[in-house]
């Protein structure tokens, strides 16, 4: 049981990943798809950050100017990688929302099934 408990963050990540992936694939509304995509990406971010935490470790900020014994620090590298991933996530969302605006202007709707029908009309 303790074995199971010690890894609870992985189960949270897995549930969120599955929800996000299901949302991306199953939802017809284009905006709902992007929200599913964001949930999917934030789950991976949570996976990285929960990797960096150490029992009894503090935030990786050196004390008294870096000299002398330092307390136990968490692992800073995953946090750096996640700063990049968050910014990449917001850029992709912004471009995706631009496409939604333009699709709405051209097709008048943002439901995927109606868009496919309209495409079939004049293909």
């Amino acid at each position, binding site marked *: 049981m303790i074995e199971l408990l010690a890894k609870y963050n992985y189960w949270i990540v897995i549930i969120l990943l599955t929800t996000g*992936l299901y949302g991306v694939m199953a939802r017809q509304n284009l905006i709902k798809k992007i929200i599913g995509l964001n949930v999917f990406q934030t789950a991976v971010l949570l996976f990285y950050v929960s990797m960096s935490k150490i*029992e009894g470790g503090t935030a990786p900020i050196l004390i008294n100017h870096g000299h002398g014994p330092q307390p136990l620090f968490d692992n800073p590298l995953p946090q750096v990688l996640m700063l990049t991933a968050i910014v*990449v996530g917001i850029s992709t969302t912004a471009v995706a929302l631009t496409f939604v605006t333009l699709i709405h202007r051209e097709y008048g709707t943002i439901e995927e099934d109606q868009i496919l029908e309209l495409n079939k009309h004049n293909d």
Partner: protein
Amino acid sequence: MTDLAIPLFLVVCGIAVLLVKDLMSSIMIFSVYSLMMAIEWCRLNAVDVAITEAAVGAGISTVLFLVILGRTKSVDEGKKHINIPALLVALGVAAVLLYGTMDLPHLRDPNIAPNTHVVTPYYLENSYEHAGQLNVVASILAYFRGYDTLFETTVVATAGFCLILLLRVRNKKPGTLDSQKIGVTANKKTPASIGVKPTATFPDVLDQDKDIIKRTVTKLLIPFIQLFGLYVIVHGELGPGGGFQGGVILGVSIIVYSLVFGFDEAKKRMSVKTKDLLVSSGVLLYGGIGVIALFMGGNYLQYGVLLPDPQFASVVGIMGIEIGVGITVAAVMMTLFYETVRIDAND
């Protein structure tokens, strides 16, 4: 047990975001979800990431979603049904993940590979001597892996330029249809048989009535928000903070200003042309410092060679690139907002 409270709340929010029918509520639940994610990261001592997630995840993306939702007028989703193939694929991925976590190391365990392998201890020791940064995350972000951050800033600048490329429409030449100008053929009238009615243009809620309370409060608050933004940019080396978080806060202050005082007022403060220049100049500053390091004989982005004393040189170099990142991110956040809201308002 308290460690489990917030993750469970996250799971509930994550599932609720996709199950709730109404679009507006799912966006609201999503912003709560990213805020709770930021709080969870605070508890996991990842403070830099938490600030960025709160500023970008909860702040800017919710604003973007709401603006786009306002534009596309779609309130409710169509028919709701469980999509079996999608469910199977998602569960398949979950099964592979579960298979993978069987022999992953325990959480919070100090002697797993990332902490014992030579890379992270090296960063912790050399962060102050070489990079002069107390905040190790900032020193890795800016110096040890500074090349990654250069491309991170380029991704942000690309998003800004993509929006300008796709959305910006030269001011209305008389008679030409809106979509003709952006090079995309349009047939506005979608056939009635599909039951889709073309929607009215975006209601002009942006021309503010003269609401005294709103204006005075904003006048009072904006200087402090901008001061705080600059503080976060410059404070990157001592405590949590850095180019991204500070840049977003600066960008948000201009967005609030344009929301409350209207576009023409905001354009007087920050014209569209200077905003485009700022987006480029931030990345140029970052890349330029790298090229200067080349001329001084070091490798690309090697700040140590900029000045005789390597530690002070790297402090100056890192400060330079943080300011570059801050400028670009602030300008791009403003572009994201200006371009999406401004399609119908004339240029």
